[in-house]
Structures are given as C-alpha cells and as structure tokens.
C-alpha cells in the first residue's frame, strides 16, 4: 500500500505526517510505503497512492484523485491519525 503526505513545501509538515503515520501503521500492524511530498510533485508521487494525508488547505489543490484523501488537524495527535487511517483502511 502506498500513502503520500502532502504539504506546501514537502519538508516540514508532510515530514511530520510521514513519521507519525509510519508509527501509527506499525502500531496497527499494517505495512505501507509512506512518502512526504509537496503539491508540485503530487502528480508523480501520488499516481499510485491509496491514501493521501494532508491539511484542509490542500484538498482543493489536490483535486480529483483515486486515493482516499484524509485531512489531519493535529499532526502530533497519533490517536487522530490512527482513528482516521483505520477508518479509511477498514
């Protein structure tokens, strides 16, 4: 499974999302390839992604996609991430 974390720069917030998503997936016993990316590289990075993690600000810019777009409010709240990832994967 492939998951892409998207932010504007592809270095700060998406990096944190990637790290915490990996932690949560491990806790849930799930395997996935999680990539941090920015809007500019979204098309190539997310072409085969099942899930896109991002902030509400980027949903419109992400536009049409086959992936499940999950909006995260608190990037450090692993319970929120866990809940939303489980819902999307379940």
């Amino acid at each position, binding site marked *: 499974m492939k998951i892409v974390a998207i*932010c*504007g*720069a*592809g*270095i*700060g*917030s998406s*990096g*944190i999302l*990637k*790290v*915490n998503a990996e*932690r949560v997936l491990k806790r849930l016993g799930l395997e996935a390839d999680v990539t*941090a990316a*920015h*809007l500019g590289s979204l098309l190539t990075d997310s072409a085969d992604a099942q899930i896109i993690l991002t*902030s*509400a*600000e*980027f949903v419109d*810019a992400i536009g049409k996609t086959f992936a499940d777009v999950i909006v995260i*409010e*608190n*990037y*450090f*709240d*692993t319970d929120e991430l866990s809940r939303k990832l489980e819902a999307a994967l379940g």
Partner: protein
Amino acid sequence: MPLPPLSESAIILGADAADWREAVRLAGRALVASGAARPGYADEMIRMIDEHGPYVVIAPGLALAHARPGPEVLADGLAVVTLATPVAFGHPHNDPVSVVLGLAISSVSAHLESIAELANVFNDSSAIADLAAAKTADEVMRIMGSSE
C-alpha cells in the same frame, strides 16, 4: 539524525507580534541571528502561507514556519519564538498560535530524519504548553531535547 541545531540566539521568548506575519518575521529574525538563514527567508516563509494558507499551524497553538531549501538558507537550523499574546493564523482548528517554530533546511534529503525528532518532541502533548510557558532559553532547549 538529531534535530537541526537550536542555539540560544535562535530563541525569542514572550515576544509581541501584532499578527501572524510579524510572528513569522520574528522566527525569520531568529534564524538570521543564529546564522541559519538570510533576511529574505522570512519573506519566503510568509509567501508559503500566503500561497497555501495556514496549514503550518500543525497542532493547537503551534506553527511550523518554513520554506523550501534555497539560496536564503545558509545552514540547517531551528528557531523557537513564543508570543506574549497569541495570534490567529486563520486556521480552522488550531488557532490561536502561541509558539512559532522556524525551520531552515538546506537540502530535502537530509531532512526527513531530523523531522522525526520534532515529532518525538511534540508527540508529547504537553510540549507546546511547556514551550509557551518557558521563561528561559535553557528551559526551551531542555523541552526541545537540545541540551541532552
């Protein structure tokens, strides 16, 4: 990989900022003071928010101001600014912001592991309130794990 270096010169406590732009400018000034960025980096951080919205407010009360690597970045570095009066960034859930982190990164590839360290600091849900209440640079360094 450790966090980007946080030096005492990159810590500003109890600052006054009239709005989020001023708050981000303070983070830029702190990164300049520590030698991590040129003055123009603040404009780039502000431009990211103008362009993409207040997504840098990644947790309640905390903004992670940053731009992409570029000529305005001199070295990897981190800055911590706490505000006397929290300011709104226009985020739907996480306003108002009392702690602004400034992040300067010279290359993307070297960077993701040091971000993992930021996650380690802030996955502790008390870290933001502890930073906002910190009275000395030493306290900030301890919370950020830079003094260990």
